[in-house]
């Protein structure tokens, strides 16, 4: 595709074809147009026919007058003859006219009658009637009186011919009325016409015209089709030329030549000037052409054929040049549009843009409040004017309706965008920090607001990411440190054990070893819990949620803990609902949660009390609560209890790392549950809620 577009051969060819097809098309169009004059309708209805008919009529009238003159002179033995030459001339004229008007020489048929109906002269055969020979009979009257004196039962027109006291009138009307007319007034009637198909034996101007008309009507359709095809082909060539314009071989996109850098108005002006001259020349040529055409078809002069065709060439050439000039203008506009430089290279566009920008900047520099007030006042004023004017003029009513409809549209647009903005801020408020509001096609003030919100969300998202990263880093650090702690701890535990196996005489030494043993075990527990707590709180643990039976799990947990709790003289009272209660959870993590809670009971519950385990279900949630009486007074709020390294008693002498509740909460939340604590006096209550599984 790109190769076709950038081929120079294709471009040149398309331009050449454009010009050639335009030229050919105009040629054919002109021929078709000139044929149309003859080809449309009957040949006798053409202008050329009536011209020819008038000439014959005038010749006939002249012949008639000459004949009357001759008869008069003959009756008076030529006593009024002044000049021998004139007489000779008159006789010659009469003879020529008689020959030319004879039935053998012309297709023109006539009948000359006096007002009383006597046929004076005719070239019709013995038993021929004029109305049978010709389609249309034309009448003219030669009268010494002005016909305005006559009654108006028929129409007439004065021709330009006047001979002495006689005037020639063309008459339209019935023959009956003509009869009444001719009864009282001394007139001569000329009746004439031409057969619709002139006899082939005769060769005169009518047969020539008839031939021309037949040829023209045969040529008309092919010429019209040819002209249309040429026009379409020229348009295709133009389209191709515009499509390829600006593409250059070996270059991506649009290449602008120096003419495309000049202002488009220069091109436009040049084109207009050139077009003006071409049009002027074209009009001259068309004038000449039309007059030639008239002459040609009236067959008065047959020598004009070469001149006519020369004129068609001139007109076609001028048209082709005009089309070429306009196409060049179109080409530069097309290239500019394709290269997105139209606005930049147009003075008018630049001025308009500058104006728009200046006005916009001015309006935007006004505070929002004033802008709203101004907009409202403008609206109010327009409303008032249009409404009051609308009482007298419906146009203003229409304008008033349009104005209000536009205002409604603008308000809708604003509201829709405002809703989009509010949705965005709601998303942000609900914690979706990656939601970005679409700011395209928003009112400017809302857009600024939306962009601010977008910036906030980006900032917050990056802050949260940063925090997550640092949390994860912390977890990794804790894990690594714990791993490093474990190796020396292994040695400590092992050597303490070895020490225990040695013989010690000093009883104090035995006591010290015992302390070492206890503390090293505690250290071991602490490092293990620390790793678990950091992993659980940062969510790096994998969670495999499946359907878990809560009753089964509590049963298993109690199996692990009953004896240790009994050692502490704690009685477990469990209230489980009928049947199995299923939850969605990760069994191992959930076990750790319950394990931690029971371990807490074992560590911190007052001896001899009861531990309550309650399992409840409802509203798609399953809650397990563990209640016990604390041995020490719980003088810290429950939120603090869930923090790391916080224990119910401040002395920190008992076993336990202080991480148990923190781990339990993190693990519960990892599984999509909630973990809550409540302290009421010495009553300690922990509740784990999880989504119920069906």
């Amino acid at each position, binding site marked *: 595709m790109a190769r076709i577009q950038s081929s120079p051969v294709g471009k040149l060819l398309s331009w050449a074809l454009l010009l050639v097809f335009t030229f050919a098309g105009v040629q054919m169009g002109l021929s078709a147009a000139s044929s149309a004059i003859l080809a449309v309708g009957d040949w006798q209805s053409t202008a050329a026919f009536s011209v020819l008919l008038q000439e014959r009529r005038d010749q006939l009238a002249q012949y008639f007058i000459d004949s009357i003159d001759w008869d008069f002179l003959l009756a008076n033995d030529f006593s009024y003859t002044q000049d021998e030459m004139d007489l000779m001339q008159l006789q010659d004229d009469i003879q020529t006219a008689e020959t030319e008007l004879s039935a053998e020489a012309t297709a023109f048929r006539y009948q000359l009658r006096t007002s009383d109906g006597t046929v004076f002269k005719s070239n019709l055969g013995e038993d021929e009637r004029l109305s049978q020979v010709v389609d249309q009979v034309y009448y003219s009257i030669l009268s010494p009186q002005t016909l305005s004196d006559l009654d108006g039962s028929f129409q007439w027109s004065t021709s330009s011919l006047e001979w002495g006291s006689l005037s020639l009138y063309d008459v339209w009307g019935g023959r009956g009325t003509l009869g009444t007319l001719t009864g009282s007034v001394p007139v001569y009637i000329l009746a004439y016409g031409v057969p619709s198909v002139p006899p082939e034996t005769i060769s005169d101007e009518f047969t020539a015209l008839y031939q021309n008309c037949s040829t023209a009507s045969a040529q008309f359709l092919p010429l019209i089709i040819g002209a249309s095809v040429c026009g379409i082909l020229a348009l295709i060539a133009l389209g191709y030329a515009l499509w390829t314009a600006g593409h250059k071989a070996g270059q991506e996109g649009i290449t602008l030549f120096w003419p495309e850098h000049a202002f488009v108005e220069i091109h436009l002006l040049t084109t207009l000037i050139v077009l003006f001259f071409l049009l002027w020349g074209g009009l001259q040529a068309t004038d000449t052409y039309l007059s030639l055409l008239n002459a040609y078809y009236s067959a008065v002069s047959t020598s004009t054929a070469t001149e006519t065709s020369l004129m068609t060439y001139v007109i076609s050439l001028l048209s082709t040049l005009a089309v070429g000039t306009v196409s060049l203008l179109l080409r530069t506009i097309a290239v500019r549009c394709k290269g997105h430089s139209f606005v930049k290279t147009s003075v008018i566009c630049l001025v308009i843009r500058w104006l728009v920008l200046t006005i916009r900047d001015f309006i935007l520099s006004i505070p929002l409040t004033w802008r709203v007030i101004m907009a409202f006042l403008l609206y109010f004023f327009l409303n008032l004017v249009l409404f009051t004017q609308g009482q007298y003029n419906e146009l203003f009513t229409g304008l008033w309706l349009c104005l209000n409809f536009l205002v409604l549209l603008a308000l809708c647009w604003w509201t829709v965008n405002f809703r989009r903005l509010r949705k965005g801020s709601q998303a942000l408020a609900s914690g979706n920090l990656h939601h970005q509001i679409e700011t395209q096609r928003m009112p400017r003030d809302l857009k600024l607001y939306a962009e601010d919100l977008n910036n906030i969300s980006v900032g917050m998202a990056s802050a949260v990411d940063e925090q997550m990263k640092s949390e994860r880093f912390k977890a990794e650090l804790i894990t690594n440190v714990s791993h490093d702690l*474990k190796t020396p701890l292994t040695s400590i*535990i092992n050597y303490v054990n070895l020490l225990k196996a040695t013989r010690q005489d000093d009883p104090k030494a035995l006591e010290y070893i015992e302390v070492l043993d206890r503390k090293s075990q505690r250290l071991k527990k602490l490092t293990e819990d620390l790793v678990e707590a950091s992993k659980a709180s940062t969510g790096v643990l994998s969670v495999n949620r499946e359907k878990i039976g809560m009753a089964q799990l509590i049963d298993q947990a109690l199996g692990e803990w009953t004896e240790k709790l009994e050692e502490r003289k704690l009685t477990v009272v469990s209230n*489980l609902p009928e049947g199995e209660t299923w939850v969605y959870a990760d069994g191992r993590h*959930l076990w750790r949660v319950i394990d931690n809670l029971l371990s807490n009971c074992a560590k911190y519950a007052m001896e001899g009390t009861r531990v309550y385990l309650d399992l409840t279900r409802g509203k798609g949630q399953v809650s397990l609560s563990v209640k016990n009486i604390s041995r020490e007074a719980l003088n810290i709020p429950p939120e603090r209890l869930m923090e790391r390294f916080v224990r119910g008693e401040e002395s920190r002498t008992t076993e336990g790392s202080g991480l148990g509740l923190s781990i339990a909460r993190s693990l519960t939340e990892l599984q999509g549950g909630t973990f809550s604590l409540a302290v009421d006096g010495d009553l300690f209550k922990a509740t784990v809620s999880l989504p119920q599984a069906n």
Partner: protein
Amino acid sequence: MYNILICDDDKDIVSALDIYLTSEGYRTIKAYNGREALKAAEQNEIHLILMDIMMPELDGIRTTAKLREDSNVPIILLTAKSEDSDKILGLNIGADDYITKPFNPLEVIARVKSQLRRYTSLGGADRGPGLLTVGPISMDDSAKQVTVDGEPVALTPIEYNILKLLMSHPGQVFSSAQIYEQVWNDPAYGSENTVAVHIRHLREKIEINPADPRWLKVVWGLGYKMEKGSV
């Protein structure tokens, strides 16, 4: 007299293990990284290897893989990493057992003994009818006798019946209620609690570390199962 190769980059741990194992009557060979361990394994007849995972030059996992190319000597990995994925990787690569640091010396000795017994005396071929075997645990139903690594274990009749149920269906999970119904032959009325206690006792008797059982596993929230004995 068995030769045990101890391999750890921490010399104090190596010598502590050396003391424990020597006092138990084993001969020890020490190595401080994977390369030395490979060399030592070539030069001596080794019956068991205790090896750390995180070591310089050649780590425990790669050393295990190398050793497994031409030897089936028992390998116990010592690891500071407590993640399950590390344990699974170690066992898949060919180790027989693992102990997480910080370890209890008594557990180390128990595991060493268990591995040695199975490596040397138990061929695993002496299986008769009515003899159930899962890993190191064997149950002779005709004699009502349970042994772990050849050592007889004393079980109560209920414990024995629970173990028999689980061992006859290795890999299958039984809920407390199912176990109760099968062993006590009574419908379960919320008295499954006793099952959990019995199983914990059972675990204490047949597992080296009852808190981290290898064979009698707790499937939290679903029940209990016996691992399929592949070793």
